[in-house]
């Protein structure tokens, strides 16, 4: 019955038209690693295009923090709210990017559980492209979050001494930093049993890290042991680099340290995540 050509056209027009679209043995050459990664990046961009609502989350969180901390605590932390804004804005950009990296974990986890990643795993392309493309797509979110935060800062009276180039350099460093941190949550996203677990666990780790840094205040008034924590915290390094770059006082070491930390994170977590992903459900 499966070999009779008559039955193909019988019930639906689709059956007849279908024969013309079977690609008759056409077999393109294997996609390159770059083209597979770019395709996954394209997928992330399309998702972004179809659900612009997710922008609201991305944009609102840093804005609320910026307004709240500047006007609620700014006067108490510094001599005036204007002065505190000069200090806090480069810090809140770190916060904005790092909070965003959690989305990387939750969205990866969602994709894995929806089965679309299983489809990818049955296709003959360089498999790490799935993760690399998704994480590159997340870079778009960082750009949006950074651009809106800095813009609002400028409206409120943020005046970076480093000028446009200083701000641009800070934004670039923060994008690199965010991309590196997102690999940690990508690993978590691959192993977690559900997306809610990812965001829950991430927040428990992230909030202490963000607050025990020099993002909000300088550590001078803290007890000695906490100063040690703050000084060792990569969030502090990122905030310092961002601050110095925006205000035009950055030394080689400030930026170099952040880039080193970023490289270290990627070196550890990218292979780990890819390994976890490859072995996911394979046993």
């Amino acid at each position, binding site marked *: 019955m499966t070999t009779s050509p008559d039955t193909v056209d019988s019930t639906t027009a689709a059956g007849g038209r279908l024969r013309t679209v079977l690609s008759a043995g056409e077999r393109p050459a294997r996609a390159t690693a770059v083209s597979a990664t770019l395709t996954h990046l394209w997928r992330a961009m399309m998702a972004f295009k179809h659900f612009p609502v997710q922008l609201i989350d991305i944009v609102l969180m840093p804005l609320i923090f910026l307004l709240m901390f500047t006007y609620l605590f700014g006067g108490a932390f510094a001599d005036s709210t204007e002065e505190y804004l000069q200090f806090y804005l480069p810090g809140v950009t770190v916060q904005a990017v790092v909070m965003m990296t959690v989305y990387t974990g939750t969205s990866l986890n969602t994709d894995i559980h929806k089965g679309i990643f299983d489809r990818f795993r049955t296709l*003959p392309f360089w498999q790490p492209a799935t993760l690399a493309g998704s994480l590159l797509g997340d870079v778009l979110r960082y750009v949006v979050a950074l651009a809106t935060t800095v813009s609002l800062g400028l409206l409120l009276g943020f005046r970076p001494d480093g000028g446009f180039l200083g701000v641009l350099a800070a934004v670039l460093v923060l994008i690199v930093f965010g991309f590196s941190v997102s690999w940690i949550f990508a690993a978590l996203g691959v192993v977690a049993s559900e997306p809610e677990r990812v965001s829950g666990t991430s927040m428990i780790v992230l909030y202490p890290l963000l607050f025990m840094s020099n993002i909000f205040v300088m550590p001078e008034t803290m007890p000695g042991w906490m100063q040690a924590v703050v000084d060792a915290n990569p969030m502090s390094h990122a905030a310092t680099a961002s601050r110095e770059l925006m205000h035009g006082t950055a030394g080689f070491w400030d930026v170099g340290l952040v880039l080193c930390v970023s490289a270290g994170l990627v070196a550890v977590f990218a292979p780990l995540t890819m390994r976890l992903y490859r072995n996911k459900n394979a046993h």
Partner: protein
Amino acid sequence: MNTQPTWAIETSGLVKVYNGTRAVDGLDLSVPTGLVYGILGPNGSGKSTTIRMLATLLRPDGGTARVFGHDVTDEPDTVRRRISVTGQYASVDEGLTGTENLVMMGRLQGYSWARARERAAELIDGFGLGDARDRLLKTYSGGMRRRLDIAASIVVTPDLLFLDEPTTGLDPRSRNQVWDIVRALVNAGTTVLLTTQYLDEADQLADRVAVIDHGRMIAEGTTGELKSSLGSNVLRLRLHDARSRAEAERLLSAELGVTVHRDSDPAALTARIDDPRQAMRALAELSRTPLEVRSFSLGQSSLDEVFLALTGHPAEDRHAEETAEEERAA
């Protein structure tokens, strides 16, 4: 390279263990090229685990599995170039449009952007999805989604297509469309491995069928062979009052001359018969008694009945397990 191996799939002693349970327990499967091969089995029988191993998604714990002569563990990339997977194991992206899904699949298999777009348009038209090409997948109906799912699997026509319960939950029209698509694919030379819970579907599509249970193959052959091992018809009867079942059972088995089975429904009985006239006589006899029949039907064997015949136990769906629990408790 011109000599195509005779077997699309060959497994030998294939084993997969989950938490100490052998989900697949020494499966020997040989699927010839160029036809539709059906795997019949209830949920939890090891169907999906087997397909996941064959599709390179899951590593076997024992035995070997070859697809067109290539070992799934040693040469996953070579296997992936020949196969496609649809259904619950490998989904489509709900956050993209139909066209975008197909473009993505084309790109990931090596097409240029231009060719991938062209191919996507061809497939959208060929599958009758033209009106929905730019709609997000989450707005598709079940039948449209299933068609797009299959279209995504044949952007590059595979030599072997895994079709996982392709018509579960579809209305009859959509089901016929899917069946037509499968037939067209096989005509074009693709081997199809189909899993299904419906004997009817296997009957419509499959040239050969394997019935598996508890990770083992319990029967293999053409659908004709499979059915000839059973009576050709099944009489199902539902009584008005469950308390009169024992009496009805006695009467029917006397009249039909075969064993009458008690269904998990306490008011229902089933019996396999060879000749519909037997059923008519038995029902006429029943109508002369005070026993009240609520409904009856005469039809083909269901998978449950195939299982009952082949294994002596019902297909272990949730319902059957509950019945087993009740029996133990009683």
